[in-house]
C-alpha cells in the first residue's frame, strides 16, 4: 500500500514536470491567444473554429470566476496577465478597470456599426460587445388568472395590489441585484422628497422578498418555477430563454419582461486587450472578430444578451419573444464606482437590517 501511494506520488510529480515542459514549449509553432472571461461566457464551437480557420490563430478560453472576481484577478496580475484578451467587464465595473489601467487602447474598424451610446471609453481601451437589460419579469399565467394589471413603473411596486409579489436579489452578492438597485437610484435619485432609500423602505413595507442571488430568486421563489412570487428581477432576455429551453415551443411565452420607461437598467459588456500581452496583434484580431456579425449573431442564444453590432440579425426566438427597454434608468460608471460601497451599505441597512 505504501509503495502504491509513493508510486502515485511519483507519477504526480512526473506529470507535473511533463506539463510544465509542455506549457513552456507551446507557442513555438502556432499563435494562441487566451481569452480570459467570466463563468457565464459561452460561444459556439464552430464560430471559434471559423476564426482559427481564417486567421490561423487558436483561441483558448480561461474562465476566471464571476465578473467581479475576474476583473480583480486581472488587476492583481497587471503587467503579467493570465491571457491576452479580457471579456466581460460591464459598466458597473468599468471605471475600476480603467482606473487600474489594465488595457491597451485599440480602436476596431468595426466600431462604425456600433451605436455611440455603447462606446463609453473615449480612449478605446475597452470595446463594447453586448448588452442586456435587467428588468422585472412576470409570470404570465399568474397575472392572467387574477386579471391584475402589470406594474408600469418602479413606483407602482409600492402599491398595495402588488404587496408580497416581488422577489429581488441582494446587490452585494448579485449582478442583476446590483443593476436593479442602480435602476432605483437612477429613477428616484439620492436627494429630494422621495429618495431611492425611501422607495426601498416602502418596498420593504410592501413585503418585498430579498434573496442572495439570481438562481435562488428565479429557481426558488419565482412562481413560474414553482415559487410564491410572480414578479422577479431578471433579464429582458429571460422570456426568450424560457422558450428556447422548453421541450416544445409554446404559443405564448410563459414569462414576460416589463420594459416600460425607467424600469430597467442596461448592462453593457466590454472586451479589451490586456496590457502585458505578447500577442497584441492577434488579440486585436480577436476583438475584431468578436464585433463581427458571425460572433455577434451567435451571442443571443449563447449568453442571452443582445449584440451591439447593428448589422447583426437576431434569432427568431429573440425577434418573437424579446423586448428591449427604450429608456432604461441611467447611472454613470464613475458614480457607480465611487459610490458602490456607500450605496450597498445604505441598502443593507435599510432593507435587511431594518434601517
Amino acid at each position, binding site marked *: 500500500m505504501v509503495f502504491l501511494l509513493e508510486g502515485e*506520488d511519483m507519477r504526480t510529480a512526473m506529470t507535473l514536470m511533463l506539463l510544465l515542459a509542455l506549457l513552456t514549449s507551446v507557442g513555438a509553432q502556432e499563435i494562441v491567444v487566451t481569452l480570459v472571461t467570466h*463563468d457565464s461566457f459561452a460561444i459556439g464551437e464552430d464560430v471559434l473554429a471559423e476564426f482559427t480557420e481564417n486567421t490561423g490563430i487558436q483561441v483558448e478560453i480561461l474562465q476566471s470566476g464571476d465578473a467581479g472576481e475576474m476583473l480583480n484577478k486581472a488587476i492583481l496580475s497587471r503587467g503579467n496577465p493570465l491571457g491576452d484578451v479580457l471579456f466581460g467587464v460591464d459598466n458597473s465595473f468599468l471605471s475600476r478597470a480603467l482606473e487600474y489601467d489594465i488595457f491597451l487602447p485599440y480602436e476596431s474598424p468595426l466600431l462604425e456599426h456600433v451605436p455611440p451610446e455603447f462606446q463609453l471609453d473615449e480612449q478605446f481601451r475597452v470595446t463594447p460587445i453586448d448588452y442586456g437589460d435587467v428588468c422585472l419579469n412576470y409570470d404570465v399565467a399568474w397575472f392572467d388568472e387574477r386579471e391584475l394589471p402589470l406594474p408600469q413603473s418602479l413606483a407602482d411596486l409600492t402599491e398595495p395590489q402588488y404587496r408580497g409579489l416581488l422577489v429581488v436579489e441582494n446587490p452585494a452578492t448579485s449582478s442583476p441585484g446590483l443593476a436593479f438597485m442602480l435602476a432605483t437610484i437612477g429613477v428616484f435619485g439620492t436627494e429630494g422628497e422621495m429618495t431611492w432609500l425611501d422607495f426601498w423602505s416602502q418596498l420593504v413595507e410592501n413585503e418585498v422578498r430579498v434573496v442572495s442571488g439570481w438562481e435562488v430568486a428565479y429557481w426558488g421563489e419565482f412562481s413560474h418555477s414553482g415559487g410564491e412570487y410572480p414578479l422577479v428581477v431578471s433579464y429582458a432576455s429571460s422570456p426568450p430563454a424560457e422558450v428556447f429551453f422548453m421541450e416544445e415551443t409554446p404559443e405564448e411565452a410563459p414569462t414576460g419582461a416589463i420594459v416600460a420607461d425607467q424600469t430597467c437598467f442596461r448592462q453593457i459588456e466590454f472586451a479589451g486587450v490586456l496590457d502585458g500581452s505578447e500577442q497584441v496583434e492577434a488579440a486585436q484580431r480577436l476583438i475584431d472578430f468578436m464585433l463581427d456579425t458571425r460572433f455577434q449573431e451567435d451571442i443571443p442564444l449563447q449568453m442571452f444578451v443582445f449584440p451591439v453590432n447593428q448589422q447583426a440579425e437576431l434569432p427568431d426566438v429573440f425577434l418573437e419573444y424579446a423586448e428591449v427597454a427604450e429608456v432604461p434608468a441611467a447611472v454613470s460608471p464613475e458614480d457607480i464606482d465611487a459610490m458602490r460601497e456607500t450605496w450597498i451599505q445604505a441598502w443593507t441597512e435599510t432593507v435587511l437590517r431594518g434601517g
Partner: protein
Amino acid sequence: MTRLARPLLLLPLLFLALFYVWPLLSILVLGLAPDGTLALEQLRQLFSPWHLNVLAFTIVQALLSTAITIALALPAAWVCVRWSFPGRSMLLSLSTLAFVLPTVVVAAAFSALIGSRGLVNDLLRQMLALDGAPLRLEGTLAIILIAHVFYNFAVALRIITGYWANRSTMHEDAARVLGAQGWRLWWEVRLPLLRPALLAAAALIFIFTFTSFGVIVILGELRFSTLEVEIYLQAVNLFNLPVAAGLSIVQITLMFVLMLVYSRLRQRLPMALVAAQAPRPQGWRQWLAVSAAGGFMLILLAAPLLALVIRSLSGAEGLTGAWYAALSQDVRGSVLFVPPVQAVGNSLFFALCTTAIALVLGLLAASLMQRGNRRWLDPLFMLPLATSAVTLGFGFIVALDEPPLDLRASPLLIPIAHSLVALPFVVRSILPALDSISPSLRESASVLGATPWQVWRQIDLPLVSRGLLVAAIFAFTISMGEFGASLFIARPANATIPVVIYRLLGQPGTMNMGQAMAMSVILLLTCGLGFAVIERVQRAGNGAF
C-alpha cells in the same frame, strides 16, 4: 527508514510553504500595503462596530453549530459502533454524501423540503388547516444551524466511529462490573475515553462553520454575516484589499490561537486496540435504540437528498428521464459544453489526484507530528481550512506567477488547492489512531529485531488503516465537492461536476433547472460509488496485513 525519513518528512512542510504560506503572505502584504506603505486609512475601518458584530455572530453560530452537531452525532455513533445492523454502512455513506453537495443545490433541496412551500409546510398546513405556511425558516439562524448540522454530521460521525470502533471494551466492562450504569457510564467512562475523537471532530466542525460562506449567503440570505462572507464582499465586490487582508489576519490568528489551545487540551490516551466485531442488537430496547438513531439520520440526511432525486425525475407531466438525457445534448453547440461523462471523468481525476497527494502528505505530516513539534505543527496544518478561500485564490494569482511555477491557469492548481483543504481532515483522521498505539508495542517489535521500517509497516500502518479509510473518504469528498479556494481558480476547459451544475443554474429555462438537479444526483452517485471502492480497497489492504 530513519535515514530516508527526515527529508521525506519535510515534504508536507515544503508543500505547505509553497502553496499556502507564500501565496497567503504575498496577498496579505499586497493588501495591507498596496503602495509600499501601510494603508492605515482603510485599515481603520476594521474596528467598526459592524465588524465586531460580525465577529460575535461568527463565533456564536460556530459554537452552536459545533455543539448541536456533536450532541446529535454522538448517540448515532454509539449505535453504529455498538451493534451491527442492516444498512449500517449505507447510513455512514449517506451521511458523507451530504458533505459533497454545492450549497446552491442543498438550498434547493432544503426549500423543497422545509421552505415556505415545501413538503413539511404543506403537510402542516393541511393538518392544522392553516392559510399561510407555519414554518418560516428562510433567513433565520435556525436554517443556518440546520444546514451546518446537515453538512457536518458526517465529520463528527466518521471521526467518532472511526476512533471508537477499534477501542477495546475493557474499561467499559470494568465500569459495568463496578456498578456504573446509564448516564454515569456515559459521563465517567465513555466520554473521557472518546475525548480525543470528540475534540478532533469539534475542532474541525468549529473551523468549518466559523468560515461558513455559502450557507450564510444563500440560506441565511445575508441577514447575518460571518468574517468569511465579509472578506469576500470586501475583496470581490469592493476590491478593498486592505480591509480584506486585515479581516483575513483576524480570522487566521483567531483560528491559530484556538488550535494551539486545542493541542494543549488534548491528552494522549494509549490503549489497547482490538478489531471489535459488533453484535446484532438483541431485545426490543436495543432494536428501539437502533431504529431511533437510524430513523433520525434518515430524516436529517436522506430526506433532502431524496427531495433532490425526486426533483431530478419530475417534469411537467410526471416522471421523466428527460433531464438526464438532455445532459449529453449540446443544443447550442457551445465551445465550453462538457458532456456528463467527461465532467464525471474530470471530477474523478482531480479527486484521485487529491486523495493520493493528501494521503501521502497527511501520513508524513502525522508521523512528523508524532516525533514532537506537534504544538506548532498541528495548528499550522489546520490553517488552510481556516483561511478565506477568496484570499488564498487571489494569493495564487499574485504569488505563483513566474516560471517554473506559473500555475495560475494550470489545472494542476486544482488538486493542489483541494489537497490543502483535505490535509487537516487527513491528519485529524490519522493522528488519534497513531496516538493510541502504545509505545510498548513498537518497542517490543524493535526488541524482537524489527527494523523501523518494519515497525511502521507492520504495526503503525495496520492500526491506522481505519483512520486512513476515513481520511481517504474525506479527501475524495472534498475534491468532488470543490471545496475552498479551488472555486476561485481560473479554469481552462476541464469543468468538473459542480462547475457544470453552477453553469446550468446560471441560466433561465426549465430544462436547465432539471439538468442541474440531474447532475447533482450524478454527483451523489459518483461519490457513493467512490466510497464503496475506497472501503473495499481498505478492507482488502487490511486483510493482507
